[in-house]
C-alpha cells in the first residue's frame, strides 16, 4: 500500500493479522508512525499512553521467558470476560469458529487449538511488538484515550503497508513483561501488545471473514430530514 492510503482504505484493510512474514520492520518507519500518533486526542490532553517497542534479541529473550512462565494469577485485569459480558461470548465463539475453520483445526482438536493460542506468545512471529502500559491511577476514560492512540497507530501502520494484531492475550504475562522492561508493577498496569510486521499473505488465518453488527443496531439517528 502506498503513502496515499485513505482513511477508509486503512480502516477497511486493517484486520488482526495472525501470521507474519519474516521481513524486518525498519526503525525509521516505526518512528514516523509513532511520531504522528502523538497527535491522537485525549481527555484533558493527558496522553496517558506509554509503551516499549521490541524487536530482535530483546524480543526473543522476553518471549523465551513467557514460554516458561504460567499465565499469571490473579489476572492483570479482566478482559472480554464472557461471564461478565453476555454478548461477548457469542461473538468470541464466532471469531474462534471462523478462525479455526480457516486453519482447518477441528472443533474437538483441543491440542491444535492450544498450539495456535500459544502462538500469541511469539506474537504470530511478528518481527516487532509494541508493549502498552500506563499508570494504574488512570480510569476508564483514559483507557478510551489509550484505545484512540492504538487505533491511530494501527491505521498509520496500514498507510506504511504494515500490519498489526492487538493482543490482550499478552496481559497473561504482564508481570514478566514489566519485569523485563523495568517498568514498575506497583505504578503501572500492562494493557496489551501490538504485533507489528508484514503479513504472510498466503496464510488462510489472515483471510477468514470478520463479522460486525449492523450500524442500525448500534446508532440511532434523531432529527434528520
Amino acid at each position, binding site marked *: 500500500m502506498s*503513502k496515499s492510503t485513505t482513511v477508509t482504505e486503512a480502516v477497511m484493510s486493517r484486520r488482526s493479522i495472525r501470521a507474519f512474514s519474516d521481513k524486518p520492520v525498519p526503525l525509521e518507519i516505526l518512528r514516523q508512525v509513532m511520531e504522528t500518533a502523538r497527535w491522537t486526542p485525549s481527555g484533558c490532553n493527558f*496522553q496517558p499512553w506509554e509503551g516499549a517497542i521490541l524487536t530482535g534479541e530483546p*524480543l526473543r529473550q522476553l518471549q523465551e521467558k513467557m514460554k516458561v512462565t504460567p499465565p499469571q494469577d490473579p489476572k492483570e485485569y479482566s478482559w472480554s470476560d464472557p461471564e*461478565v459480558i453476555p454478548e461477548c461470548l457469542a461473538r468470541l465463539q464466532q471469531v474462534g469458529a471462523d478462525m479455526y475453520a480457516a486453519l482447518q483445526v477441528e472443533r474437538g482438536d483441543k491440542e491444535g487449538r492450544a498450539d495456535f493460542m500459544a502462538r500469541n506468545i511469539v506474537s504470530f512471529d511478528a518481527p516487532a511488538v509494541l508493549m502498552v502500559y500506563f499508570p494504574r491511577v488512570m*480510569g476508564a476514560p483514559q*483507557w478510551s484515550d489509550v484505545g*484512540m492512540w492504538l*487505533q491511530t497507530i494501527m491505521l498509520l501502520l496500514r*498507510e506504511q503497508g504494515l500490519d498489526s494484531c492487538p493482543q490482550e492475550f499478552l496481559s497473561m504475562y504482564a508481570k514478566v513483561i514489566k519485569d523485563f522492561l523495568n517498568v514498575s508493577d506497583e505504578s503501572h498496569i500492562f*494493557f496489551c501488545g501490538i504485533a507489528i510486521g508484514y503479513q504472510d499473505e498466503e496464510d488462510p488465518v489472515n483471510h477468514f471473514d470478520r463479522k460486525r453488527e449492523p450500524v442500525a443496531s448500534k446508532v440511532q439517528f434523531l432529527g434528520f430530514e
Partner: protein
Amino acid sequence: MDVSEAVTSRRSVRAFLDQPVDRDVLRRVLETAQRSPSGGNTQPWNAVVLTGKPLQKLLGKVAEVIPQGLAAYSPEYNIYPPELDGAYQERRFGVGEAMYTALDIPREDKASRLKWFARNFQAFGAPVLMLVHTPRYMGPPQWSDMGMWLQTVMLLLREEGLDSCAQEAWAVYTKQIRECVDIPDDHIFFCGLAIGHGDRSQPINQFPVPRAPLDEVVRWEGF
C-alpha cells in the same frame, strides 16, 4: 485524504460554521467505523446522533440548569482520576492556558472563562451531536475499544471534510441527556462528539495543543 493527514489535521474544533451535515455522509462514516477492532469482537460502542429539533431541545434543557453550577452536575464516572501527579496536571492545564491565551481571556477573568466553558453545552455551535454510551458491565478494556471506534469516526470525518470535538464535558449533564434521549438505564453515558464544518479561521481553532515528545512515551529495544 491519507491517514497521516487525517491524524495531524484533526483537532478539537470549538467553533463551527452554520452549515448542515448530510445524513448519508454520517451513515457512511459510521458504517465504515463498524470495522474498528475490539477485544473478543465485543463492539461495545452505542450512540445517538442528534440534529435539528431534538438537538435544540437538549441544548435548551441543559441551558436551563447551567446557572445552578455544580449543583446540577450528575456525572456517572470520574472524567479524570482524582489523584494525579504533576506531569498530567501540567498537560491538562497547558491546553486550557493555550486556549484562553488564544481567546485573550486572562486567568483573573473567571466570568469570561466560565462563559466560554459553557459553550461546550451548545456543542460549540455544531449542527450535529453524537452521544456515546455503553452497557454498564463493560470494563476498562471495552472503554479502550470505544476509544478505537471514536478515533476511527473522527478520522473518517476528516476524510469527509468534517471536523469534530470529543466532549467528555457532557457527562456532567447526564441527567438532562437521559431526559431527552433514550439511553437504556443499564448503559452508562460516556461522551459527546460535536460534528460539523469547523470555522478554521477562528483563533479558538488555531492555537497549538502541545504533545509530549516521543521519547517520553515510547522506548525502543533491539533496533
